[in-house]
């Protein structure tokens, strides 16, 4: 028994067939084919599945897909510019070495995007506070913070 979920996905209207109990993460990956958001812990600790719902960072592994009805969902795939290029925030992660194995990176970038849209010029403490819910098992936090700091000053971020 499936239900149709209507949402704005990365800026475009979408209608997806989902099971009533489906998690947003599974719908994004398996139905919409957007595999940027990752499943790490599956219990809201690691943040690898972070996406934006109506502009706010959420763990998509803990978000019932049906709760996205009528809402705007943005994944890492939706950050890229219209021409498919990287956003200035993503570019900063590349330049500052903010990614090692890359598994946590989409979640890190989405948490950073939520931070920068609310606070254009965060301090390092504010950056770290915004990343409390994102774990990097490569422990590359210094470069991640540096990436976000670098992006903060630039026009057009995130």
């Amino acid at each position, binding site marked *: 028994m499936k239900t149709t979920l209507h949402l704005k996905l990365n800026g475009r209207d979408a209608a997806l067939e989902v099971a009533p109990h489906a998690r947003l993460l599974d719908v994004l990956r398996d139905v919409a084919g957007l595999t940027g958001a990752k499943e790490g812990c599956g*219990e*809201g600790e690691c943040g690898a599945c*972070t996406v934006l*719902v109506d502009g706010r960072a*959420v763990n998509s592994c803990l978000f*019932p897909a*049906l*709760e996205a009805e009528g809402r705007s969902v943005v994944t890492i795939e939706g950050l890229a510019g219209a021409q498919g290029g990287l956003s200035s925030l993503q570019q900063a992660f590349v330049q500052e070495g903010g990614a090692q194995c890359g598994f946590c990176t989409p979640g890190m970038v989405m*948490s950073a995007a939520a931070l920068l849209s609310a606070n254009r010029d965060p301090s390092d403490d504010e950056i770290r506070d915004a990343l*409390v819910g994102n774990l990097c098992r490569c422990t590359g936090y210094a470069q991640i913070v540096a990436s976000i700091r670098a992006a903060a000053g630039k026009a057009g971020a995130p």
Partner: protein
Amino acid sequence: MGYDYIRPASLEQALSLAAQGESALIAGGTDLLVALHKKKRPAPGRLISIRSLPELAGIRDEGARLRIGAAVPLADLLAHPAQARLPALAKALGVMGSRQIRNVATLGGTLCNASPGADAAPPLLALGAGVELAGPAGRRTLDLAEFFRGPGRTALQPGEIMTAVLVPWPGAGTQSHFLRRSRVAMDIATVSLAACFGLTNNRLSGVRLAAGAVAPVPLRLRATETFLEGKALTDETLAEAAKLARADVAPISDLRGTAWYRRELVGVFLARALRAGNGGKP
């Protein structure tokens, strides 16, 4: 798994669905969904989502008190101007989970989940908060101290839904403090303590104390409160109060700390909270 997921449009609909049984209520879902996915609890036939019910939304100043909709996400409460008047609660909300969790986890949810270490509970208890419950028999309000009945157990009757948390505004001159110990960020508290009191000419008044993670439920430290009322804030008073507070709690030993450590910390936190009233370091 494979439960159904229903999103009623009104509280009335939600109550009628809840009355049919074989279901569980879900708000933010940050605890329930983990339990279901990790099979720590059996899947109900269906989940009734109360996340977007208009009756459970919104934060309203009602003059003598603040009415917080039970489904208000922690992040919304934290961003509300009312927080300036409730610093102990704000401090507790700020350490609950991550941004991602606070954006969806609700105030009513953390109370109904009834974890002994729920960080929002001690400040709300110390503030004298109440909860508003709606059920088949109508609405009732309950002192939050009467709401917690055990780990994961509350006074909610089958078919009842928490609709709001009611926080009386602290009187002029009332201060509130929240102290907490955990191992790392995003960890559950090992011990937490909240204190509300007035201090005039070094005399304590209106003392309300509550502690978390030191008993089967978050609880008021009643014997300690009674002792402190009207007392002068001296080293002797603090030492006696710490002793009483250690007797007011009933902690267990677990991976976060031993019962002995938790008891010690309750006394230490109490002294720090009261000293903070005199400009001492909290």
